[in-house]
């Protein structure tokens, strides 16, 4: 019999229950109050006293009201039919909810049980399968989805029967499997998985090495992220976090994009709802919405559900990774998630860590980021979850617990900077502080060399060095004045400005400049490197800036022109002619 509980205390969304049976940590229960059923999760157990966090408003909840435990943790239902959906943090289908306002205790089925899918078996009776093994396939929005053996089952199972190719609902039995002990399982297309447990039914997780193209130059060229990599974007408000994140989710070369709007503005989610069904995926030509799933737990939705929303998103990502797909997961913002943890820890009267965040915040963040990754599945195929989270540091100060703890685990760091944003140098990613650890991986070096050719990473590092040198010289010029430094210093400075303006800065709202394919990024970096490696002769410093301003202007016009169009070529010719006027010809 299921365990029952009675409410014995209420403090905001934390409720105390007295229970009459066994209860598990993180088990889900429903509290009945005034005709509503409120979902809650166990967060602490002390004898028969159980603390739960309620995923809804606890208004009018009374002492003595009853709760029923479900015997399972917070879980999601996974099956074909999830693409293009808008879910809340607990995977309720928002479109199925009635009325303008969210109703307390209104839980909707995330899946469509009536929809018919064309199923193709991938195994035959007598074959053996393991957990997450592919047994069939179904196509959704042109994506080949796999129907898999249940996650988490032990050992090898024999396929007793498998449905023939044909039309099925997700609830229809499509296979029966049995293990050596004779235990049988009837399978339909639905998987259930607890969100707080990472799904590890894969063979191995190597270091990721394959470039994930985003079309954003400051990422792909300077600090690349890889399939299965992790990155984070901290930035004060107004520095373009959302624009950058939307650009990545629109352009990245991924099969599935999951956007977890975690405690952010509702209107930003509305923007995705409104635009993504219209926008075209630059890689496939299909509508962006077809590959996108939105987990919307905006800032005004209940705090506990916000905390759960990132796990919901990650578990859905793991489901698609197990099919051998490339998944990109974006969470905006992980600070709101951490704040939700803080609110709860505070109500439980735990001793606080720095800035009143819970003491274990660093391990919670580390565990979450570690669920991303590139994996080889048991059948030899590969899949990946690339995770990029934004961080909203309080007061724009990067020395706060969420930023610091994220920095320890995320391998790419894209620091948005107020100063660059003020100067309208977008994307405002600071080129000196930001980094990608992947660029140091020999695996990545090998991969990028096979893709692009020799010398790429040297060129990237050279550009970074020039940027750093440029910054140092700018500081010296500020102190000593324009004529207080040699003319060559001005040349070095303006070479760094050239890299900044032409490679780093990119107009997210310009049709052409918004996305730069890798091939074009190579041309840009090669061209800029050539210019920077050449020597120029100037009489005085004023000549330097006016010359480089002209160079920058032409290069920018090239960025705005269609790749290899007539306009593009004529700008290039113009550029070469201009460069010749000042170039020192080496003997």
């Amino acid at each position, binding site marked *: 019999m299921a365990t029952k509980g009675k409410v*014995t*205390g*209420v*403090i905001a969304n934390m409720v*105390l229950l007295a229970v009459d049976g066994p209860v598990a940590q993180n088990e889900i229960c429903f509290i009945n109050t005034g005709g509503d059923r409120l979902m809650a999760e166990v967060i602490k157990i002390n004898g028969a006293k159980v603390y739960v966090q309620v995923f809804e*408003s*606890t*208004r*009018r*909840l*009374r*002492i003595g009201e009853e709760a029923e435990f479900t015997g399972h943790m917070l879980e999601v239902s996974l099956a074909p039919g999830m693409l293009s959906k*808008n879910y809340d943090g607990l995977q309720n289908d*928002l*479109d199925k*909810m009635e*009325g*303008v*306002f*969210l*109703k*307390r205790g209104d839980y909707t089925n995330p899946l469509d049980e009536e929809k018919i899918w064309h199923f193709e078996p991938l195994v035959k009776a007598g074959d053996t399968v393991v957990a997450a093994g592919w047994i069939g396939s179904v196509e959704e929005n042109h994506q080949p989805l796999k129907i898999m053996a249940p996650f988490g089952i032990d050992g090898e199972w024999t396929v007793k029967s498998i449905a023939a190719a044909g039309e099925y609902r997700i609830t229809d039995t499509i296979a029966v499997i049995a293990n050596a002990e004779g235990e049988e399982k009837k399978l339909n297309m639905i998987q259930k998985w607890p969100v707080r447990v990472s799904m590890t039914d894969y063979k191995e997780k190597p270091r990721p090495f394959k470039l994930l193209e985003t079309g954003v130059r400051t990422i792909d060229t300077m600090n690349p992220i890889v399939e299965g990599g992790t990155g984070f974007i901290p930035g*004060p*408000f*107004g520095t373009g976090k959302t624009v950058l994140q939307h650009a990545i989710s629109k352009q990245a070369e991924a099969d599935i994009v999951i956007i977890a709007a975690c*405690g952010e*503005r*509702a*209107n930003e*989610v*509305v*923007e995705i*709802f*409104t635009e993504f069904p219209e926008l075209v995926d630059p890689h496939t030509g299909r509508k962006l919405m077809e590959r996108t799933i939105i987990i*919307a737990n*905006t*800032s*005004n*939705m209940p*705090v506990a559900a916000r905390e759960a929303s990132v796990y919901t998103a990650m578990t859905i990502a793991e489901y698609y990774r197990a099919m051998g797909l490339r998944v990109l997961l974006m969470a905006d913002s992980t600070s*709101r998630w951490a*704040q*939700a943890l*803080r*609110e709860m820890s*505070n109500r439980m009267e735990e001793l*606080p860590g720095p*800035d*009143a965040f819970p003491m274990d915040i660093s391990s919670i963040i580390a565990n979450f980021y570690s669920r991303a990754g590139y994996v080889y599945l048991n059948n030899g195929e590969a899949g990946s979850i690339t995770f990029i989270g934004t961080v*909203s540091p*309080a*007061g*724009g*100060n990067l020395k706060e617990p969420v930023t610091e703890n994220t920095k320890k685990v995320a391998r790419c760091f894209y620091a948005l900077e107020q100063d660059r944003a*003020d100067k309208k140098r977008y994307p405002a990613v600071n080129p000196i502080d930001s980094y990608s650890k992947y660029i140091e991986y020999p695996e990545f070096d090998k991969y990028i060399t096979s893709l692009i050719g020799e010398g790429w990473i040297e060129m990237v590092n050279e550009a970074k060095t020039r940027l750093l040198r440029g910054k140092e010289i700018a500081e010296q010029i500020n102190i000593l004045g324009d004529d207080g430094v040699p003319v060559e210093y001005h040349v070095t400075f303006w070479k760094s400005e050239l890299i900044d303006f032409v490679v780093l800065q990119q107009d997210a709202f310009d049709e052409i400049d918004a996305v730069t394919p890798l091939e074009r990024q190579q041309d840009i970096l090669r061209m800029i490197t050539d210019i920077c490696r050449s020597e120029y002769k100037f009489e005085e410093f004023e000549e330097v800036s006016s010359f480089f301003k002209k160079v920058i202007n032409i290069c920018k016009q090239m960025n705005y022109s269609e790749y290899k169009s007539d306009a593009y070529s004529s700008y290039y010719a113009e550029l070469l002619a201009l460069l010749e006027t000042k170039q020192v010809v080496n003997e």
Partner: protein
Amino acid sequence: MATEAFQKIYTKINSITKATCSLKATGVGYDELATVNGKLAQVVKIMGDEVTLQVFEGTGGIPTDAEVVFMGKAPSLKVSDQLAGRFFNAYGDPIDGGPAVEGVEVEIGGPSVNPVRRKQPSELIATGIAGIDLNNTLVTGQKIPFFADPDQPYNQVMANVAMRAETDKIILGGMGMTNDDYLYFKHLFSNAGALDRIISFMNTTEDPAVERLLIPDMALTAAEYFAVEKNEKVLVLLTDMTMYADALSIVSNRMDQIPSKDSMPGSLYSDLAKIYEKAVQFPTGGSITIIAVTTLSGGDITHAVPDNTGYITEGQLFLRRDSDIGKVIVDPFRSLSRLKQLVAGKKTRKDHPQVMNAAVRLYADAANAKTKLENGFDLTDYDRRTLAFAKEYSDQLLAIDVNLNTEEMLDVTWELFKKHFKPEEVNIRKEFIEKYWLGQNGEKA
């Protein structure tokens, strides 16, 4: 509030702090209202049979044998068309001497709008102030605060915005407002003959601080009635949200919660977001737009209140006194309306975004020139022209006393461009230069 026959009266209070009192009681719901010797209170904690009440006007004078009556409902407001033109206190009781409002009783702080039922905001709100309409255009369904130091005339600017904006209802939520400012608003609304579309909920500095926690929810509950039931365009003014946050920190402190940054409660972000996210554009045409005031301490925006606000709202408007012209202006650098691109150039003239950016860029050049001047460097001819431009731009457009329509604002900016610059210096797309610079009198600059 009359005691009804079946209600149980408790008369034994166990403990009293400055803002809360606790007693043994049963059958009490969370968030429920109660009266303690006639003073309104709300249930903030239930632990077994021990109930903790937050007494809004403070616990001064409450004896341990005070009469406590639970009302069986959360704070609520009676909504109907009768709200229009009235002044209320934080509990929704009239303070203008008029009769009580009849209507449907709605609990305040109600549920959130389902994000998929929202519509993308797309209607411009004209205020006549160029610092707003030209550079930081507002849109219905937006939420945006003024970030201002206490000595700046933010209430006057906000009142101007409210009076000029074409909205069906204006709802003013005053938190910790000085009595003088309250009378200013009352006088202004009464004299403008616009009283029938204005509703005010007032907590002045004379009222207890904790009461003001009810103000935003009261104002927004009324707003939701008009926006949802009547499909009206509602503008909600909340001043001053810093005072609201201060009240939050008082309560959390009294409840022994561990403070986070700047002594604010750890839930500050969620608390503020719950209010601001009530701003919404409904598909049926109704909308709630929130213009708030967040007072700063010495312009510090890294303080927890403006910082969290900045992450929640869709931009912010900064006021600054410009010593060159002796007027208060809307600072074009630090102000931002995140939704302006939804209307600028789409609902306004096509040249709007380019003209706006060019003017701000030139204004920035002027700021650089000024720094040069102050540091004793020589100015170029261009520097001098940008300085002259900046002064006129500030005076004729950025100042808060400007009242123009958007077309006029654009025309004035073009005139200033022509007066001080060459076409290639303003960096505007050729088609607009041809139309608005050369077009009118056919001459080349």
